């Protein structure tokens, strides 16, 4: 999946709506500098997730995470419009999606957190480890890091799904950076604005 022209347009449209709602001095006079920065960052993520749609885990997770915070819900709803916001934040039911129900996922996530907090690993006995064992351990550790970085990564059942989600996420993350860069340039010098869709 590569970013299509329709993705880019959808992203920009929602990004601009978010900027207008959250960014302008005249539209949101009471906002502090930090609030404005946060609001624009949230708008960028909502725009990216929405433009991607509900078929990928990371985009659904991003919307879920963002709308978990009450202050984000109002922003997301305003940017996307009530109907689209509701559609995207509803859990998807396609067969490719994880079969875990929402409550099980939450239980599993919280129990994982508790377990790792309580169980302090005792110092491992020193012994010669084979290179392949070390390599496996590194892969496991780094896979955990990846799960934390990719939205929704922690809920993915197997490493193959994680890799698929990562591939998609990176492609669209790059597009997000690219589009925001062009948007910034356009705002700095509107007369020089040139972009190939």
């Amino acid at each position: 999946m590569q970013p299509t022209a329709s993705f880019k347009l959808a992203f920009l449209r929602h990004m601009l709506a978010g900027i207008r709602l959250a960014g302008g001095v005249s539209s949101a006079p009471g906002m502090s500098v930090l609030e404005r920065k946060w609001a624009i960052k949230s708008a960028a993520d909502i725009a990216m997730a929405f433009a991607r749609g509900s078929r990928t885990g990371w985009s659904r997770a991003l919307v879920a995470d963002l709308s978990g915070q009450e202050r984000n819900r109002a922003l997301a709803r305003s940017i996307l419009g009530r109907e689209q916001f509701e559609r995207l934040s509803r859990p998807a039911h396609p067969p490719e999606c994880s079969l875990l129900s929402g409550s099980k996922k939450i239980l599993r996530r919280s129990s994982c957190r508790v377990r790792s907090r309580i169980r302090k690993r005792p110092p491992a006995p020193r012994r010669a480890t084979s290179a392949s064992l070390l390599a496996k351990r590194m892969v496991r550790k780094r896979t955990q890091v990846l799960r934390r970085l990719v939205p929704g990564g922690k809920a993915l059942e197997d490493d193959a799904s994680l890799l698929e989600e990562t591939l998609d996420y990176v492609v669209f993350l790059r597009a997000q950076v690219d589009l925001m860069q062009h948007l910034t340039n356009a705002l700095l010098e509107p007369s020089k604005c040139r972009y190939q869709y």
Partner: protein
Amino acid sequence: MSSRRSGSRITEDDLNELVAKLQSLLPEARRRSMGRASASKLLKETCSYIKSLQREVGDLSDRLSDLMSSLDDNSAQAELIRSLLR
């Protein structure tokens, strides 16, 4: 996105294909610095790449926020935004 049917076992080939795709996603400079690719190096570079992209989004958001707050209602930029939103 993939041709893999849901519920079926992932094959060695599928996994290799995913890993190769991931490697090709990394920018040239990162791929070169990896040297001989191993699964663990690839994961490390991918994580580092994602973090740097996310940081860029944060920086660009800050810049946009500064830009927006310095716009006055009559500027060309404000007009550009208004026209784009119509």
